[in-house]
């Protein structure tokens, strides 16, 4: 017979556990941590005023986009305060990369933002190329931009579906999945994989354009504009959708800059900041495209901005196809690469914003340190700023409009 301390009972014990008595089980349902508050913020958050209660949303909830857990403090239907709890998908990707050689590290970064994997490869590949001081062949750069913009469209298509699904619409996600599936299939023809492509290599790409990819791309391009417009017509003119998204989760320019927002979420507040133009990389300076921006800064603006970006991506793809040069797709490099000791930073414009890698080399064949800057993590911070004062249903809409991917948040 042992005496039991409160720490014997797991904080979130199963209700079927025979060691836990009924009273203890009933107590388990409050998401209050079993230790005394560690910070002032924690003490304030876990103190309930009259009429308030906690609602533990996630990690298994239909619309938290993966395994995010959000502790909501609600007063009726109104959200008073909110605390996101992260780490359910933490795999230690940065550390894994530091224990792999430069080629292997790219595989680990692939599943970070698993719906736009090419961008997760692009940034570390660019950082390593800077470390090695390699010149990438121009055809490889064109192929990178071409496949990257296709992946951006696929990612935005999925965003539209998710956003509508979180607002209660059943059909848009299936319509936009048609678009996404066609892109994913053509990228599979190019790279051999549907989701985690592992296509970019240090110094180029793994394999030239092939016939199947080109024929699929041509077929899709001929109807892409029509398809995207029909998807838009389903939502943009829907009174219920517009009334729910307009004026919701408004963030002004100053706050957005303070919260380090980038990408579509920042551009929706009126700052036309795009790394493709602000800090040009690859062949983007040669291409002709606009940086769309909107001034409202609400959920509707974020949604509409992504629609505009899809059209710009189509322009870029068109130009890439017309200007594609001949030549090799890989630079000449030794099998085992050992860059000189040094540091390199490479940022690219992903579908969610600035995706950056900072790599330090110590002269061995493995990176000494690899730091990944993921936009999803940055954007998820502002959920706590935007949500309080809104309703429970709006929490989902705001979270979906910021478009975080939990694979990237938890790394």
């Amino acid at each position: 017979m042992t005496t039991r301390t409160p720490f014997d009972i797991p904080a979130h014990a199963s209700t079927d556990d025979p060691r836990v008595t009924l009273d203890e089980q009933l107590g388990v349902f409050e998401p209050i941590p079993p230790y005394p508050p560690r910070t002032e913020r924690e003490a304030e958050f876990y103190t309930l005023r009259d009429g308030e209660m906690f609602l533990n949303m996630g990690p298994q909830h239909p619309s938290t986009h993966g395994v995010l857990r959000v502790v909501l403090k609600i007063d009726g239907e109104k959200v008073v305060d909110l605390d996101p709890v992260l780490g359910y998908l933490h795999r230690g990707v940065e550390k894994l990369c530091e224990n792999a050689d430069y080629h292997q590290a790219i595989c680990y970064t692939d599943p970070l933002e698993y719906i736009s994997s090419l961008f997760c490869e692009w940034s570390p590949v660019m950082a390593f190329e800077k470390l090695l001081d390699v010149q990438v062949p121009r055809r490889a750069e064109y192929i990178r931009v071409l496949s990257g913009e296709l992946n951006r469209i696929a990612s935005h298509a999925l965003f539209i579906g998710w956003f509508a699904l979180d607002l209660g619409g059943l059909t848009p996600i299936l319509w936009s999945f048609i678009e996404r599936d066609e892109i994913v299939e053509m990228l599979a023809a190019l790279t051999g994989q549907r989701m985690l492509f592992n296509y970019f290599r240090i110094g180029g790409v793994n394999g030239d354009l092939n016939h199947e990819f080109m024929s699929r791309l041509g077929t899709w391009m001929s109807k892409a504009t029509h398809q995207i417009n029909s998807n838009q017509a389903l939502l943009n003119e829907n009174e219920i959708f517009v009334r729910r998204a307009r004026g919701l989760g408004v963030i002004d320019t100053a706050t957005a800059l303070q919260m380090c927002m980038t990408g579509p979420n920042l551009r929706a507040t009126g700052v036309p900041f795009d790394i493709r133009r602000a800090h040009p990389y690859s062949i983007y300076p040669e291409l002709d495209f606009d940086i769309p921006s909107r001034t409202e800064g609400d959920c509707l603006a974020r949604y509409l901005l992504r629609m505009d970006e899809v059209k710009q991506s189509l322009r870029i793809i068109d130009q890439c196809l017309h200007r594609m040069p001949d030549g090799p797709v890989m630079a000449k490099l030794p099998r085992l690469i050992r860059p000189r000791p040094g540091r390199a930073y490479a940022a690219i414009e992903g579908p969610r914003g600035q995706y950056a890698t900072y790599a330090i080399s110590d002269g061995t064949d493995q990176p000494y340190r690899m730091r990944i800057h993921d936009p999803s993590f940055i954007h998820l911070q502002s959920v706590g700023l935007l949500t309080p004062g809104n309703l429970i249903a709006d929490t989902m809409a705001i979270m979906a409009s910021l478009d975080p991917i939990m694979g990237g948040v938890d790394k």
Partner: protein
Amino acid sequence: MTVVGRTWERLTIPGKILAVVIPLGAVLTAGLAILIAVIGGAVVQFLVDNLPLVRFVVAATIVLLMTVPSAFLIIYMEMKVIALMNLRYGPDRVGPFGSALSVVHGLKVLMKEDFTPTGADVPVFTLAPVVVYMSSVMSLLVLPFAPGLFGQDFNIGLLYFFAMGGLTVVGLLMAGWSSFNKYSLLGGLRSAAQVISYEIPLTLSVVGVILLAGTMSLNQIVLGQAGNLFDWYIWRQPLAFVVFFIAVTAEANRTPFDLTEADSEIVAGFATEYSGMRFGFFFFAEYVNVFIASGLTVAVFLGGWNAPFNWPWPVAVGLDPGSLGIGLLLLLTLGPPLAIVVLGLPFYLLNSRIRFWQALIIGFGLFNVIAVAAVLGLAFLSFDWVVGLLWFMGKTYVFVFTFVWMRGTLPRVRIDQLMGFAWKWLLPAALLNLFVTAFAILVLNR
């Protein structure tokens, strides 16, 4: 082993079944005959004395049994129609075009574990689905399906209908409260707020119709719309129709007003902790509610079982054989063989493996089926309740389709928009409609 035992061993399985069933049946039949001979007269006398009661019990049983197949049909319809709107196939494995899938769903729900969570208020938790289901079934009792085909013709039919609809919210609130789950609680409270708010415009919108018809009996309201298309109340009460349809959508908890079970917000609302057949009851009740909402809309505003044009129903099967003369003889002798050949010929021509005599047999079978169907069909159409039922069901399923269509296309509204819409728009519109109708009746009748 005895002789009987050896004989039993030698029987096949069907033989064993028959050897048990035939003697048992004989004994039971004899017993039943004796029972009828002894107390049959008294039972018949009792039934004759209490005919309204018997009628009520039979009608209630039929209505209760009718809910399950109609719910299955609507569930299948929803799966298939939404699938087509989503550009996918939908169910296509079980039965022809997947039509048996909803039956399989029902069986699956029956076989699942019936789980009661720790901390739940067990009696309330158990009773909640029953309350929800029974309130749906009971409101079905006053719905007039066809002339003479209704459970009970109350003179307060509409009032009874709304009272029963209001009972649903009690069940949902019970489910939400007793589940010991915050999502369930939110769902229950949302349903209470929603149903109570929409009950007011719903009831007020039909007051105009009640003024016009002069009665609250649904049967009388339908009878008052007899005639053609333009005698329906939708033309005299267009605003009331719009208000009524929106409010009845909210009452049935359907998209865009399905906040009580909003899966992207509060998981499954009041049904979060339910599993097995208890969940099945909620599920059935939802689809029965869709049927009821459509049926009520049709009965109050779209003429119920009245045809949209003045057709001489029931069909007068006026056939005078004598007028044909020699034609009758020719028709009777040459008609059937000719029809058999004509019906069988396509099979002979299209399939080389079918011989001509086989094709003739097929033709004979088809001719018989068609002849019997024609005679029976005409005979049934001469009953006005069959025609009425067909019209009623046709109109009702148009509205069921509309509900499914809305679910396929519309997102969900927010709770404050929902409440604001009810109190700021629907209620004033219903009141305006009521005052205008009352004023018009006052002026025109003077």
